[in-house]
Each structure stands twice: as C-alpha cells, then as structure tokens.
C-alpha cells in the first residue's frame, strides 16, 4: 500500500509542475500580421485632361491636387490623409492639421530630426535648413532632413499657418525613394489652395 512518503513523493512533482507552468517572466511576443486595408478616398472626377487629376472635395480649409499617378488614402484619427507616390516607392506623404503653432517651429523641426535619429539643432541650424514656397494659402516653410546609417531615411516636411491652424505635410521614407518622389510632393505643396467650400 502507498506510504505517506511515497504519496508525498508522487504529489509534490505534480504540484511543482503546475506552479512552474505559471511562473517565470512573460516573454515578448512576435507576430507577422497582414496589414488591414485602409479605405481609399473617393476617385476624383475624370475628364480634366493633362497630367493633373481633379482635386478631391473635402471641406477642410485646404485643398490639394495630386500629381498623376499619386493616390490618396483616407486618414484616421489625427492623420487627415496619406499620399502614396507611384511606382511602389518606399516613401509616403502624410497630412496633419493642428491648432495653433503646435509647439513652435524649432520644436517641430527637432521633432522631425528626432524621428530620423538626428540630434536637435538650434535656430541658426533650423534657418539654414529652411526654404520657403509661396502658395495661395500663404508662405509654406519646407525642411529637408536626411538621417544617418547604412540605410538612410529622408524627410521633407512642409508647414503652413492658415490663421489658427498649422498644416503639416510630411514626405518620409527611404532616402532614394524620397528623392524620386520629391518633385511630385513639391507640386502638391505648390498647388495648395484655400477650400472654397469651407
């Protein structure tokens, strides 16, 4: 007949196994997840001809026109829209509008630099990196930063104040792809117009 000692000897490993199963530090999980398809913006009206698509209708204060081949994907949350250049380039542009000056020009510039792993700059460095473009919605300030490392990333950021709201247009991606998309991105910036429907 089973003695108390042999019973304890049999029961203890079972209890220990159960406890061990629940002990230990939780592990970091890793998963490869298919991207969820984002809803596309409505197709622009056809028949305008030329290389410029008709502007989409969006009562948001600004209207932009995408160059031929570029597509717009509806944003979510704070991002109003994403512009995808043609050719599967590893770069894309985003649109965000924030109230006020959103922290100021230098803070924004250093935030963009930080996203590329660059150290912060000062007022002089920011001024040196800034170019301006005149548009129908006002003067747009444009910054062009390139990150470091074996595979470089590049960001071309444009900011315009439309009186109470600062609009940020940011093209960011692999440096070579961003260079390829630069002309189209600047065409979007130069074509900014006030939203007549607002």
């Amino acid at each position, binding site marked *: 007949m089973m003695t108390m000692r042999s019973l304890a000897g049999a029961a203890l490993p079972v209890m220990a196994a159960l406890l061990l199963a629940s002990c230990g*530090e939780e592990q*970091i999980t890793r*998963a490869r*997840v298919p991207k969820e398809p984002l809803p596309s913006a409505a197709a622009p009206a056809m028949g305008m001809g030329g290389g410029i698509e008709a502007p989409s209708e969006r009562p948001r204060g600004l209207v932009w026109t995408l160059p031929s081949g570029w597509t717009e994907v509806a944003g979510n*949350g704070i*991002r109003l829209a994403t512009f995808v250049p043609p050719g599967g380039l590893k770069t894309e542009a985003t649109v965000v509008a924030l109230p006020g000056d959103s922290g100021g020009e230098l803070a924004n510039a250093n935030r963009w630099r930080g996203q590329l792993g660059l150290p912060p700059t000062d007022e002089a460095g920011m001024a040196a990196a800034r170019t301006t473009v005149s548009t129908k919605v006002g003067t747009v300030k444009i910054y062009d930063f390139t990150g470091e490392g074996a595979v470089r990333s590049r960001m071309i950021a444009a900011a315009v104040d439309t009186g109470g709201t600062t609009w940020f247009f940011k093209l960011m991606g692999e440096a070579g792809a961003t260079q390829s998309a630069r002309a189209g991105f600047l065409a979007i910036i130069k074509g900014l117009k006030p939203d007549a429907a607002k």
Partner: protein
Amino acid sequence: MPRNNLVDRLAAALSSLKLTIACLALLMVLVVACTLAQVELGTHLAVERYIRAFIVWWVPEGSAVRVPVFPGGGLLGGLLLLNLIFAQFRRLELSWRKGGLWIMHIGLALLFIGEFATALLQVESNMAIEEGQTKSFSEDYRRMEVVVIDETDKEFDDERGIPDSRLRSSNVITDPSLPFKLIVRAYHDNAALSTRPAGTAPSIITQGVGVGMTYQALPPVTGDNDQNTAVAVVEPVLPDGRSVGVYLLSNALGARQGFMHEGRSWRLALRLRHYQHPFSLTLNDFKHDLYPGTNIPKNFSSLVRLKDPRSADDREVLIYMNSPLRHDGLTFYQASFGKDDTLSVLQVVRNPSWTLPYLSCLLVSLGLLWHFGVMLRKALGARPA
C-alpha cells in the same frame, strides 16, 4: 517505524476530519466576503484577491505594508485537497466494497486539481468582430502591451508585443529581433491624460503626440465594464547610444507615433494585449432573435467562417449560447454584441484543463452508483430469508 515521527504526525493532522470542517467553514466565510467585495472591486479583481489568492491581504490606507488577514481560496482549496488525499489513504481500505468511495474521492480531487490548473493556466480574451470583418487575433481587456511594429513591408506588419508585466518589472527592454533597446521611463496601469499647462517645467517627453501633454497616475479601475487608460513613457535607444526621443504611449492615444531607422519605419503604441491565432474568423452574420411580440432576447448567434491554412480547414460554424466553437485548444463563446446587431463579441478561452470538471462529475457519479450498488447488495443480502 516510530508512530510519533514528524511525517506521521503531519499525516495525521492532514487527514483529520477537524481540518475538513475548519476549511469548509473558512471557505463559507471567504465566499461571503468575496461576494461583498465584488461591489467595490468588481468580479474579476474580487476573485483574484479572495478566491485565487493563497492569502487575503489588507493594505492600510496610505501604507505600502501588506497585512495577511485571512487564508485565501488557493490555500483553503489546497488544504482540502491534501486533506482528501491523506484521509483517503489513511482510512480507506483498498477493496471492492470501498471502490465507490475511492472513485468518488478521486473525482473530487480532480475537481480541486482542475480549479488549480484553471487558475494557473487559463487565458481569457475577447474577439470583437463586425459583420464582414475577418480577424485572427483576440484582445485581453484586462492586460496591456507596448507594441513595437516594423511597418516597412507593404503587406505585413512585424509586431513585437511587450507585456505589461515586463513594463512594470524592467527598465530596459531588449530583444534579439529589435535593432534598438527600449528604456521604460514609466508605466502606469491607469492615468488621466491632459494638456500640459503653459509655463510648467519642460516635460521629459520629446517626441510624438505626447509633447505638450501630461498625465496623472490613478488607481486601476475596478468596474467590470470600466477600462483603464494605461500610460507608458518609453525611449528607444539606438545601438550607438543615440536616443530617438522619449514618447508618451497610451491606449487612449490613437495617433501614429514612430520613427525611421536604417530605412525601416517603426511605430510605437500601447494597446490591449493581443493574442495572435494561426487561423482566422470571418463574421458572416450576427443574429439577435427576440421572442415574437416582445423585446425579450431569445437567442444570440454568430455565423462565422473559420479558415485554418495549417489544416486546410474552411467551414462555417454557428456560435450561439451554450454552443461554442472549439478549435486549436481555444473555445469561442458568444458573449456580447453591439452596433445595432452588426458587431459580435466572442469570449475566447484557452484552458488546457477544461475537461477535468466533466471527468470529475463522471467519476463522482460512477462512484455514487458503485457505492449505492454495494450498499444495496449488502442490504438485500442481510434480509431474513
């Protein structure tokens, strides 16, 4: 063998009927206390602190000292299990006549063991899925994770989930698959987010939407239908020691926050903990039936399409009350619904020991029948001729 040795004395104590009565009495008090505590703590937290714990602790207000005040359900259940086992082997002879009692007691012991295993191993989550939507993950409404996502690929996101327990216990998170380390400056299970007033001292948050925001840590919510606003302040640091910046993450912040490194696009977020599954469910139809002429619910059902590429499984399954879907060690129950009957919420449970209660009931029933049969035979045999 001397009768008064330590093992025998311990065995005698553990097999004592007095111990059984004491444990049952304490369990009754515990159940009442837990029921009352649910008002303030909510169901889940009350069960965690009273029934699943080994000790019920009291923390005086304003103090960090924990004072043990009552044995918890884990301790009482464990003692009852030991009491059952020791009493069984010390008092019950191994014979056909006592076979029914043996089987019953084994069934009872399995019930205890099953509950311990469930407490230690069960993982519960939820899958909220809209009609037409396909999902391959479920969410834990009570657990959070910081997720670091490599978004570079056009079709797939490469996600690393850092569980909240690691965020609380570790200041530096490293992983062989990550090209940078993540310094955890702060983690709070619950907080109130607000805009930082002008003129206040600069925040440590230097990147993302958290710049210009502040937070105040709060006690975790306790209501069953309440949700914590978790906050994490993290700082990615590159291999050469450069900091990318300090980000404020929260499940209440929906804006994308991230950076580029070596040509790859990284996103940081804090969200409900995800459990990825190697199969997908598509909700084809959700039905919410009422009794005719009334608003009394009669039935909730979700018609889902299960697709598992590992086994070429591709079939429709109807999930409704008391008829869950069991697949890949998971059980999907119809739990809730919303959005004008277009959203179904399934409770997803992984419990390796789910069969033990059924086995236990079967054994207890068999044992009772066996013992009844033995007693009946004895009674019939004792009748005068």
